[in-house]
């Protein structure tokens, strides 16, 4: 048992760092993912992975293959796309998913154009995305900082965020906090995604946000429990996935996501709230 579970982390520094990385990621991505799911933004993560290209391209044109410059550029582009789409959705009839699609496609095209101007064939997006096995001090610090900022902002804005997702009309009628809250949330999403891409790659960053939230939905109808469960599933998948990658030789990112996917599948089948199998088992109905 020790060899199976503890030894890999005891023996290798890179495994310990990866552990800290996935735990921090799970802590931050869990709540953000739940809110994204409730606000029907589950596909936004994938869109964002493409939207950041022109920012990374500008960073690349300015400073070469400097990861920090490209990440900073990607962050700016991500903010521009997310906040632009959010603002358009609020100000016009357009729904948020259509606005985001429009913005990210334009952004991606711009990025491809910029990259081709330089003439080099370096696959920017690929270089931009890290791996959980290569977390140096600076990157670890980045993940932990992002998680901390996320938790602080969420704690501060929890009430308007929930109300805005639940009954935006009512919030608009009692407060002017709706629009800034919405934009702050989008900024958090971009921060988590771009930081996640830089440190851990797209698959891990997006997957750890959406899969645990989706799985947790099948076990509870209460919001706080939902968030707690999502964090638990995210962190658990991270640890288990690393161990799977260590013992079986599967690549680390996909291993973690597949474990999370397994948790989702189990939830769909056996979840007490809306799972498939409990419906098939007949139980006596209650008196009232």
């Amino acid at each position, binding site marked *: 048992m020790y060899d199976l579970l503890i030894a890999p982390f005891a023996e290798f520094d890179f495994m310990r760092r990866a552990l800290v990385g996935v735990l921090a990621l799970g802590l931050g991505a869990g709540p953000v993912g739940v809110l994204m799911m*409730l606000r029907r933004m589950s596909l936004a993560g994938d869109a964002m992975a493409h939207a950041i290209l022109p920012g990374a391209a500008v960073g690349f044109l300015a400073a070469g293959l400097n990861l920090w410059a490209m990440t900073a550029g990607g962050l700016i582009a991500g903010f521009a796309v997310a906040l632009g789409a959010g603002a358009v959705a609020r100000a016009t009839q357009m729904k948020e998913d259509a606005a985001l699609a429009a913005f990210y496609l334009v952004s991606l095209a711009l990025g491809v154009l910029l990259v081709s101007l330089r003439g080099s064939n370096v696959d920017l997006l690929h270089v931009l995305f890290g791996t959980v096995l290569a977390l140096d001090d600076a990157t670890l610090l980045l993940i932990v900082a992002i998680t901390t900022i996320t938790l602080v902002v969420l704690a*501060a*804005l929890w*009430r*308007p965020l*929930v*109300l805005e*997702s*639940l*009954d*935006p*009309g*009512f919030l608009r*009628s*009692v*407060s002017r*906090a709706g629009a800034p809250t919405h934009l702050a949330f989008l900024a958090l999403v971009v921060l988590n995604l771009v930081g996640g891409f830089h440190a851990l790659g797209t698959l891990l960053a997006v997957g750890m946000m959406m899969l645990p939230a989706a799985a947790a939905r099948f076990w*509870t*109808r*209460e*919001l706080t429990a*939902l968030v707690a469960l999502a964090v638990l599933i995210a962190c658990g998948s991270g640890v288990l996935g690393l161990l799977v990658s260590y013992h079986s030789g599967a690549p680390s990112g996909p291993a973690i996501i597949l474990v999370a996917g397994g948790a989702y599948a189990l939830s769909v089948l056996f979840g007490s709230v809306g799972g498939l199998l409990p419906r098939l088992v007949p139980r006596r109905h209650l008196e009232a």
Partner: protein
Amino acid sequence: MGDVLAFRDLTLGYDRHPAVHHLDGAVPEGALLAVCGPNGAGKSTLLKGIVGILPPLAGRIDSGVPAREIAYLPQAAEIDRSFPIDVFDLVSTGLWRRTRLFGGIGRADRVRIEAAIAAVGLAGFEARPIGTLSGGQMQRMLFARLLLQEARLILLDEPFTALDAGTVADLVALIERWNGEGRTVLAVLHDMELVAQHFPETLLLAREPVGWGATPEVLTPANLAEARRMCEAWDEGAAACAPAQGRAA
């Protein structure tokens, strides 16, 4: 008591077509006013204009009450019923004005929330997820939230659609209680019987005001017939409306 609302040559509409056309008048504080009229008469539009969702095409609305003292119940709430929240938590958002972003909910507040829930006949439903409520129960819950808002001006857009008689009776009692506390209530209603029984004043609207005053004098067969006669659909070929045509109020 001053006027809570004053309409000055107000025109509200969509895409330049007026839904409320040249409305003048005032609503005194403490009024219990029903807004009636055929479909498409501009009743919901008027409420939206008062709340500020719809800017006027012409004229204006003067409000003697600040925005945060106005409570609005729209015709079809945009509430996401699949959201994982229970009745207690949703009703508690009615305390927003006091708690704002960070204020906690103390013992006294909990008592008030529970009292509000009981006042609308939903005692025992505090922990139920909102997705499990029926239409009538949903509406009661929203009334409980309104209760907690303690607003000076309450706007209700067709609050009793598709509700059973028992629920309606309970909610009407609540409205009368509010009015007894000095609050002004405007309600858009279709049920003329109910209006005649409980609402002392009525504004009969058919885009342009047909009558505004004591209910028995406004809801006459002649007025109702005239209201029905007024055009329901908007006219694609209409010319631009000339200003200041000296209409009688």
